[in-house]
């Protein structure tokens, strides 16, 4: 008997809640929802399947590259492909995305290159991709901080008159990603307050993958997360995060509201982190294999594949072609990783400030002189020189 853990709802959340929007059952059966309709065509459905398969391939490559020592660490998005593909496809090119560190799938679809993403985990860069051409902000590793940036960016869109115009082409919105764990952070809650207060065109997209490293969702909340939105003054919707059609429908609705000037919305994509938190984590320490097995039956890719096959929209030949494409993509990802350039240390001084300082320039020169002293004695790595005569 413990005293602190005494809330009656602790640990009693439903695994299969009924209050979520679903358009495709785990068995791949199309169902209707009173408020949200699938608004795409067969081509889009096939595209979603293709993107999920390629996304998973990217993820598998990431994990394998880490295992082979090519990446320092990798945070898998395994199992969250529908949430991310559905959300990404609900955005227009002119909308803006603020991702966490696990939105590889979203970023791929926004045009961020695999190399740009892998550099972070290989330790050659820190999110140095082209945020302007992709309209996709850098990864944020400090939990929740990006939700405030997203909200401020949305306020900027408002100030620039890009919300609620008669011409829909002139409108834009922001999609802010965060996790279930992040929902406890002060920054995240403050972003809800600011978004509501200014009626900002931002949609909060929370992938509730049930775990924040080792802590279950019940440590962060005792009511379903989407119900919190009402208290902040905007609508909240829970969607089956493993149903790409439903995620697409709900996110399309929320983004269009935002663009039209109807303010923020919150989406809880109910999903599951099938893999470890990162490759450095061991989930057997804190969760049961039985739970993972339960979720395996709700696989986001399987259900769409089953649906499209059964309804004759795709056939084995189409799938075989997709397999080949994934194979080729995998090879490209590996090649891109191996080709990542390691920056010169002296470069780090150049980007600290917009206008550098004499002091920092002096430090760069000091470093360079020191580094050059090894060139003259023929050592190509200070590490090697450093280790001389010392056993670790």
């Amino acid at each position: 008997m413990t005293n602190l853990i005494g809330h009656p709802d602790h640990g009693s959340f439903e695994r299969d809640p009924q209050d979520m929007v679903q358009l495709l059952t785990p068995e791949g059966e199309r169902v209707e929802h009173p408020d949200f309709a699938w608004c795409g065509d067969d081509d889009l459905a096939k595209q979603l399947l293709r993107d999920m398969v390629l996304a998973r391939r990217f993820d598998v490559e990431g994990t394998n590259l880490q295992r082979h020592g090519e990446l320092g660490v990798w945070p898998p998005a395994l199992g969250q492909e529908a949430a991310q593909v559905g959300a990404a496809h609900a955005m227009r090119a002119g909308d803006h995305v603020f991702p966490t560190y696990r939105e590889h799938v979203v970023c791929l679809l926004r045009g961020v290159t695999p190399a740009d993403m892998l550099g972070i985990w290989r330790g050659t860069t820190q999110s140095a991709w082209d945020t302007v051409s992709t309209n996709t902000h850098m990864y944020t590793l400090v939990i929740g901080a990006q939700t405030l940036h997203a909200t401020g960016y949305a306020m900027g869109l408002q100030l620039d008159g890009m919300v609620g115009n008669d011409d829909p082409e002139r409108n834009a919105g922001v999609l802010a990603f965060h996790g279930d764990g992040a929902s406890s952070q002060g920054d995240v809650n403050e972003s809800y307050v600011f978004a509501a207060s200014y009626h900002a065109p931002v949609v909060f997209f929370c992938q509730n993958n049930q775990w924040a490293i080792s802590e279950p969702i019940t440590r962060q909340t005792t009511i379903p997360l989407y119900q919190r939105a009402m208290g902040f003054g905007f609508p909240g919707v829970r969607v089956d995060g493993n149903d790409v059609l439903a995620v697409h429908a709900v996110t399309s609705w929320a983004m269009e509201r935002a663009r039209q000037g109807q303010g923020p919305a919150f989406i809880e994509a109910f999903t599951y982190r099938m893999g470890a938190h990162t490759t450095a984590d061991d989930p057997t320490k804190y969760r049961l294999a039985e739970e993972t097995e339960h979720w395996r039956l709700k696989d986001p890719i399987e259900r769409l594949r089953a649906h499209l096959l059964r309804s004759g929209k795709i056939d084995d030949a189409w799938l075989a072609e997709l397999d080949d494409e994934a194979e080729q993509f995998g090879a490209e990802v590996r090649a891109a990783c191996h080709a990542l350039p390691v920056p010169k240390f002296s470069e780090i001084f150049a980007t600290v400030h917009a206008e550098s300082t004499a002091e920092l320039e002096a430090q760069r020169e000091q470093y360079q002189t020191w580094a050059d002293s090894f060139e003259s004695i023929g050592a190509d790595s200070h590490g090697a020189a450093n280790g001389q005569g010392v056993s670790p």
Partner: protein
Amino acid sequence: MSAQPQAVPNGTKQTLTLGKALNAGLRRALEADPKVLLAGEDIGRLGGVFRITEGLQKDFGEDRVIDSPLAESGIVGTAVGLALRGYRPVVEMQFDGFVFPAFDQITTQVAKMHFRSGGRIPMPMVIRIPYGGGIGSIEHHSESPETYFAHTPGLKVVTCSTPHDAYWMIQQAIASDDPVVFLEPKRRYHERGEVDETTAPIALHQAQVVRHGSDVTLLAYGPMVKTCLEAAAVGADEGRFIEVVDLRSLSPIDMVTVSASVRRTKRAIVVHEAHRTLGLGAELAARLHEDLFYVMESPVLRVTGYDTPYPPSRIEEDYLPNLDRILDAVDESMSR
């Protein structure tokens, strides 16, 4: 004050890793005082991402080893309330780069409570932070934030460099009635060394000469102590007799020990991973200048991280002070 940790006359002398020594020290503190509580992200069932609290929730229960919601300001802020209520909270910040959401609570609330209350309200809290680089990690996981805390009146700041110190210092920090920021050199978690329970530890805020030498004093702490000892060993082969002082306490600084060493060697070099400008090195240089201006034979030098954000891991080796840079500084100090 809670009872000071005592030597165990018939206790053990065993070889432990620094991480396991911290775990053993936390265990003893939990046993010694029912008011001691541990809180933090993933510290319970998982035992922390570095496994420093492994097994403690199982043995002491979920009320004493608490998995917190993911919110650092919340963790420290509620620890203030628990301390007001008479508990002795020991909170974990998962990584150095993630203490900053709690910075306001630490610097404006924790640090000032005793002062604001006219000395009536103590804040016996320990804030554990794994810190420093060299582990090949992504950004925000390799920082050295000690100066922010050492610059804040009301806080005490300590760091350990050996398993023996880890074991004793964590208990001493918990026993302190002042808030203590306890910095753990995460890249040394796996270093092994003897932990001796049978003799009483030296005072928490005392520095220690860990290698004697007559030519120059290296002033270091936490992860850099080992690096300095290695540099001193290499230096000895080259005929340099390098003294190494492990500061252990960064606030307050034990200037008695530091000055005594530098008075003998007449030369000092401060080594830390943290950025150079306004780092501990700046403070030590100023104090040595005040105390020993006419004794020293060369200016205090600094071997530190650069004034840039911590770099991507593939090039971190060039950021961190290493043997070459330290020995270069020794040469420079001696040649002046």
